């Protein structure tokens, strides 16, 4: 039977942990609200652009721009967007496992290079032999627009110069607070959503010309996609951490309950024992 003092110490330490998880939950809730707001506010842009693109591409040749060209997948670039910190449940491990399976499958037929974002992804892929092109392992949450733009530029350049034949992105999509959805999607060559059947296209003019317009719109689209992946991933991360910390707080609560019960039982048992001893002593004295 554990000693009283040990139990008391344990309860105290669990209480401390509970306070920490509670605080982390509050912080993640605030951060989650913020990233959710960003996702919501960028929605018109994010929804408008693909529609536009599909309309534009309807009017041009797929071969007319290097980012649209489809090639056999001999070299592949894989982008994995994870987080820096853990303590967010299965957020990272699910993603990394699925990404690994996917890229290993791809590696059978083609060469796979990786771009890793987030410390967790970097640590995970250290164990495997994929060549890595580009790493962002610190401060993923603080990546600025310029950083994201750099990543987009880098990917576009790789693709446009034929250094890679396809770019895949693995990230956590924010589906609901309860569970992020691991998504692996082909990012380049660009494949805009299919145009709806029967939609009569208006005869369109280009100013200054189709090529120039494509040169402006496609990079916009690529950058926006990258940005979107990040925002989704960060919203999902905070949601996951929020849930994980909520669970941890609840578990701590349960644990404290159980421990207190045991503590009280032992305490009562020892009181009873002491009482018994006193009574016996009194009886023994009285008999004399």
């Amino acid at each position: 039977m554990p000693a009283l003092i040990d139990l008391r110490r344990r309860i105290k330490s669990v209480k401390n942990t509970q306070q920490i998880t509670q605080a982390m939950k509050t912080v993640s809730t605030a951060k989650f609200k913020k990233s959710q707001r960003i996702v919501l506010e960028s929605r018109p842009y994010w929804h408008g652009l693909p529609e536009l693109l599909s309309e534009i591409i309807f009017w041009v040749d797929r071969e007319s721009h290097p980012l649209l060209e489809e090639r056999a997948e001999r070299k592949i670039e894989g982008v994995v967007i994870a987080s820096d910190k853990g303590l967010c449940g299965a957020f990272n491990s699910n993603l990394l496992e699925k990404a690994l399976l996917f890229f290993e499958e791809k590696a059978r037929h083609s060469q796979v290079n990786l771009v890793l974002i987030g410390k967790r992804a970097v640590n995970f892929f250290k164990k495997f032999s994929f060549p890595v092109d580009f790493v962002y392992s610190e401060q993923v949450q603080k990546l600025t627009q310029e950083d994201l733009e750099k990543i987009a530029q880098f990917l576009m350049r790789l693709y446009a110069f034929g250094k890679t034949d396809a770019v895949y992105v693995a990230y956590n999509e924010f589906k609901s607070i309860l569970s992020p959805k691991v998504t692996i999607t082909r990012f380049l060559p660009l494949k805009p959503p299919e145009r709806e059947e029967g939609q009569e296209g208006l005869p369109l003019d280009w100013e200054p010309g189709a090529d120039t317009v494509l040169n402006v719109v496609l990079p916009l689209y690529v950058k926006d996609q990258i940005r979107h992946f990040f925002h989704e991933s960060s919203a999902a991360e905070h949601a996951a951490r929020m849930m994980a910390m909520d669970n941890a707080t609840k578990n701590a609560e349960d644990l404290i309950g159980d421990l207190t019960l045991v503590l009280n039982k032992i305490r009562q048992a020892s009181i009873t024992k002491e009482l018994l001893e006193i009574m016996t002593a009194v009886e023994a004295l009285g008999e004399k």
Partner: protein
Amino acid sequence: MTQDLPLSLQLKVITPRKLLIDEEVGEVSLPSLEGYLGVLPGHRPLFLALGKGRITYRMAQKEEALSVQGGYAEILPEKVVVFTEQVEDEKEQPTEG
């Protein structure tokens, strides 16, 4: 086609951060790569790459402007949709009546 020209344009300026402008306007002037282009309701459909410059738009009584750093515009007879990444927060108040 000339008899049912729309009377106003729906102007939308969309940035990655938010839907910046969503208004009925009478006239828009857009900075294309080769100079400014004025758009009135009923303009023929046009895809337009934008350069640096100012978008000015006129509503019933007032005129407003904002600066953009490139982007893209889709012009249809009854609406103009502008996608741009960077907008300077300089929103001019009415300059003339």
